[in-house]
């Protein structure tokens, strides 16, 4: 018997909830649903789902509060669903520990891709464990050699600077997931960095000019405007 991954969908709009359930069930996931935040919290402890798909606007509590309380005791992956105009909420949710986000209106392909990435990342264990610092990461023609601290495109060394390499390696470690500006700055320059995200942006522009054929049509590192960056999923 196949054990199917269990996903908790927290959404107060019945039509959207049904839609998500239908898409996920059709693709081999087991789905349970909750309408309220309090209901969701008790279902998390009783059903132990592998993943939560959470709409930020809930009738009884702020979705951001739910993330905070879930994160206080478990690393269970959370994908946030939000409406496009609420930029700040999205970034706040991600910075509080949500793993990824979907913007309404989203396609079924996007939903499935996000779910797949989030579940795979929990399988691989915590991303900051030691094994990801060695070996290689490959996506298309891009290879990151963690041992030599090199990034190669078509087998050729791109000669990234120390900082540029660190950014690429960090994005690759979370490949497929969006990383916010604040998260990247915190990880790379530490909490004392006060200069805003321009230093990151300029580094990223230089990286693109080194690894992408056309910096305006990236193949490896994508920008989520106003949120952060996302590395393409690696080949497995």
């Amino acid at each position, binding site marked *: 018997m196949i054990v199917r991954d269990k996903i908790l969908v927290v959404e107060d709009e019945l039509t959207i909830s049904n839609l998500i359930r239908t898409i996920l069930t059709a693709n081999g996931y087991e789905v349970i649903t909750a309408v309220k935040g309090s209901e969701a919290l008790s279902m998390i402890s009783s059903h132990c789902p592998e993943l939560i798909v959470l709409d930020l606007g809930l009738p009884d509590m702020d979705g951001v509060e739910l993330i905070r309380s879930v994160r206080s005791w478990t690393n269970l992956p959370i994908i946030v669903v939000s409406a496009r105009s609420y930029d700040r909420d999205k970034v706040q949710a991600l910075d509080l520990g949500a793993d990824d986000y979907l913007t309404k209106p989203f396609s079924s392909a996007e939903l499935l891709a996000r779910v797949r990435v989030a579940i795979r990342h929990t399988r691989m264990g915590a991303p900051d464990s030691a094994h990801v610092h060695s070996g290689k990461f490959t996506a298309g023609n891009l290879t990151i050699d963690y041992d030599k601290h090199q990034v190669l495109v078509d087998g050729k060394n791109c000669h990234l600077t120390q900082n540029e390499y660190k950014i690429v390696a960090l994005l690759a470690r979370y490949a497929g997931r969006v990383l916010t500006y604040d998260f990247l700055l915190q990880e790379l320059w530490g909490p004392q960095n006060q200069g805003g995200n*321009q230093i990151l*942006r*300029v580094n*990223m522009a230089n990286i693109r000019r080194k690894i992408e054929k056309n*910096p*305006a*049509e990236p193949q490896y590192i*994508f920008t989520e*405007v106003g949120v952060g960056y996302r590395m393409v999923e690696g080949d497995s």
Partner: protein
Amino acid sequence: MFRKNRNGTQHKLYFRFYLQGWLIFILTLGLASIVCALLQHITSSDVHVPMIFVLAVLIVSLSTDGYFYGLLAAVVSVIGVNYAFTYPYMKLDFSVYGYPLTFMTMLAVGFACSTLASHLRVQEQLRVETERERIRANLLRSISHDLRTPLTSIGGSISTVLEESSLSDEAKRELLTGAKLDAEWLSRMVENILSITRISGEASELVKSEELLEEVFSEAVQRYRKRPDAVPVSVSVPQEVKLLPMDPILIEQVLSNLMDNAVTHGTGLTKIWIEAKSADGEVIVSVRDDGCGIEESLLPHLFDGSLQFSGKNRSDGSRFMGIGLSVCRTIVEAHGGRIWAVNLPEGGAEFCFTLPEGGRNDDCAR
């Protein structure tokens, strides 16, 4: 219109106004003094002196904010004229016959001009607001009018599929595909409406941040490629890294609308080119296609939102003609840029818009 100081930029702005006021004040009065001094060598009469200073007071009042500089200019002129340009020279003497009258006249001129200038400014503000209101009203009117068509199609298609059990699979697929296209179109329109509300909300100032154009380009193009009727797009940006102050979501909207416009109205187009070029103090973004171009008679009205009422060519395909473009114009102008369109000699149309550079690019060189 008074707004609370919300951040440092606002402070900086006030400071600049402050400096600008003093600069105008000093330059104008200085110039008046020089002219008077020169004229003194040519003619012995001094009837021109008060005239020149009245003119100076007028210029200062008209080109500065509030009453302060105008009145100050009047007082300084009265004393200055008395000191330097009337007998006894280089000496203050208020006992000259008729002097109180001159003094009062100067003050009155300063006061009247400052009042006039503030009135003009209020009028201008009102005019801008009325214009903005007009665009918003136009938009809402045509939207409420034209949303019915796709909604009818979506609702009708779905209930037909649900109720007509005799439909072939192919017919069902066709109906649902149509509903999907209309839903996508609706969601693009909603994005446009959201963009407008982002600009004309309570605080009508844009929330700008320093952004890289290539990032905005790539997201707009990525989104565009998901369309079923997308044609190939080629994108290029300058090699140099340049951060520009903008609201990235709105600029993405401009690009999406321009690409959408090319696809919807550029009959026979096979490709779109998006390009950014640095010019003097600004960046010019161009969206070019190889379609049928723009009808010459429409060119002057493309961006003013009047096309959707013109009534001609209103087949289903030209729904919302011009709405997207007037949204583009609103967004670009809110950024302090310009937008225009031309037909290319080799065929096809080119839409260009500019974004001013912030002049703070040294900040990011750290």
